[in-house]
């Protein structure tokens, strides 16, 4: 492949039920920074059926171009027709960078498409930048400039690696949702819209969707939550978790808990964070009345922001918290919920 033929930064603009997912806007935001460094532009690629109107929204969030692949076979996500469409886009338009959200769709579509177009794919990236590979010039090895450097955690978040894809195009990454910043929406900002209709051929890889079942249960998996409001024994009583429920609701978050709370029978096991529960990495983790034993922190210390409230100033939770507040949760939580309500109402 001639690498120079590949130009521009493209993002897969995920939509579900003809509504764009937040990750689509986050990817445009990051793609803008990368495109500025490379002196190129940002293309959002949206696949679906009856999705023409989504192009305007992608333009308002900063896409320079929108490629629309509108086909009834793309109405509900299935790996094969989506992979055919996205691979066709890559082969036709040759972007140098192709970003996909690390969602339940993207982590299926990304590997399939990258294998199909024979390029590398870096999973679940938390940081992307343009730089040199190798990072430092080495004798006997060409140092390539303008490469996509993709940084990702591995080993359950205990190691971190920066990865490049110097000899294949496009450079592909799936990007963790909730990490990149969207741009401000500019009403009326227009993208150049391109309707592209690649042939999608039904083959042995097509599967049949028998049923779509939404919201399988009322409880969100705490491993998927972006904001967790987690309570420990210090919450005092099962009824007092109402304070945590209220805070979680106003932030669009989910309530989780420590082992002590499960052992006391206040909350079910599937909400338990920690070594014998689940490992979580939300954007924000509130540790409310949790002392922070190592068995608990092992399951949450990779959260992006940890806010701890505990009345015991010697509680070990303060050793891992970014922001620790020594105080009474019964006084702080209701006031915090009200303050956030007021704050968000002004937006």
């Amino acid at each position: 492949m001639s690498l120079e033929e590949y130009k521009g930064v493209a993002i897969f603009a995920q939509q579900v039920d003809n509504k764009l997912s937040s990750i689509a806007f986050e990817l445009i935001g990051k793609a803008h920074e990368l495109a500025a460094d490379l002196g190129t532009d940002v293309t959002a690629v949206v696949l679906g059926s009856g999705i023409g109107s989504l192009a305007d929204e992608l333009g308002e969030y900063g896409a320079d171009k929108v490629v629309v692949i509108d086909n009834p076979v793309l109405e509900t996500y299935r790996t094969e027709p989506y992979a055919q469409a996205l691979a066709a886009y890559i082969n036709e338009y040759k972007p140098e960078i192709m970003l996909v959200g690390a969602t339940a769709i993207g982590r299926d579509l990304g590997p399939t498409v990258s294998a199909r177009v024979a390029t590398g794919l870096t999973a679940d990236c938390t940081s992307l930048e343009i730089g040199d590979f190798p990072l430092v010039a080495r004798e006997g090895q060409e140092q390539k400039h303008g490469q996509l450097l993709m940084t990702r955690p591995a080993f359950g978040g205990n190691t971190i690696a920066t990865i490049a894809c110097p000899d294949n195009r496009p450079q592909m990454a799936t990007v963790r949702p909730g990490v990149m910043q969207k741009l401000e929406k500019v009403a009326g900002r227009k993208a150049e819209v391109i309707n592209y209709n690649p042939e999608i051929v039904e083959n042995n890889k097509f599967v049949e969707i028998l049923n779509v079942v939404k919201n399988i249960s009322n409880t969100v998996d705490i491993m998927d939550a972006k904001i967790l409001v987690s309570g420990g024994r210090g919450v005092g009583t099962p009824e007092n978790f109402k304070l945590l429920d209220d805070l979680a609701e106003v932030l669009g978050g989910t309530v989780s808990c420590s082992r002590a709370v499960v052992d006391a029978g206040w909350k079910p096991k599937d909400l338990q964070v920690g070594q014998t529960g689940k490992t979580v990495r939300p954007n924000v983790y509130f540790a409310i009345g949790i002392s922070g034993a190592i068995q608990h922190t092992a399951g949450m210390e990779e959260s992006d922001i940890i806010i701890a409230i505990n009345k015991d100033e010697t509680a070990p939770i303060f050793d891992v918290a970014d922001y620790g507040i020594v105080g009474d949760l019964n006084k702080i939580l209701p006031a915090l919920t009200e303050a956030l309500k007021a704050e968000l109402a002004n937006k």
Partner: protein
Amino acid sequence: MNIVVCIKQVPDTKGGVKFNPDGTLDRAAMLAIMNPDDKAGLEAALRIKDETGAKVTVVTMGLPKADDMLREALAMGADEAVLITDRRLGGADTWATSSTIAAGLRNIDYDLIITGRQAIDGDTAQVGPQIAEHLGLPVISYAENIKVEGDSVVVQRQYEDRYHEIKAKMPCLITALSELNEPRYMTPGGIFDAFDKEVTVWGRDDLKDLDDANIGLAGSPTKIAKASDKVRKGAGEKVALDPKESVEYIVGKLKEKHVI
């Protein structure tokens, strides 16, 4: 019916990650285990075997010591085990790994291939779908329930806020979530038998239709520019304020970090 389960030996990160005094990961102190999602995939295969008498073969690519894990799989009830091991295959990224395993699978009869969704060391979730792509098979990722119906499988495929019930004709590949089931223990008789069984060992030269350009470190499109153990972050700020100031402090931090 022939089921192949792809499994990987990984360091145990769930049973307590160990750190050196300087905050780096102490790999030597961690146990090597069968990757949890893969074990759930094996259990799903064994349940189909219990019902239908299917033959279950486990396949791994790794170091010779992965033999231990293959014997565990045999002791749980797998019928055959294959170890793909060769220094020339080392340092592979997901493209090279999936190309290699796909080549190994071409040596085996299969109707259904099950892999774990992702391994707890790499966390990529890419190898399963990429094996399917190399073999030209339909892939169903994130499976939480697997039923065999005639020449098809019916699978519950998880998304963030929903699931799809999907029917696919075999042969196909499914990636399993550890939530799928509770894997069985090895039986004493099974353990005894497992050590008498032959583990098939394949090197690079046993793998057909595999270009040298697609294996090992050199055949990996992605290259590591920098890797480090993440030094655990230390304590942040700690404040003791009255409730009103505490609230202002938290709201301020949430704004500063673009949470609200």
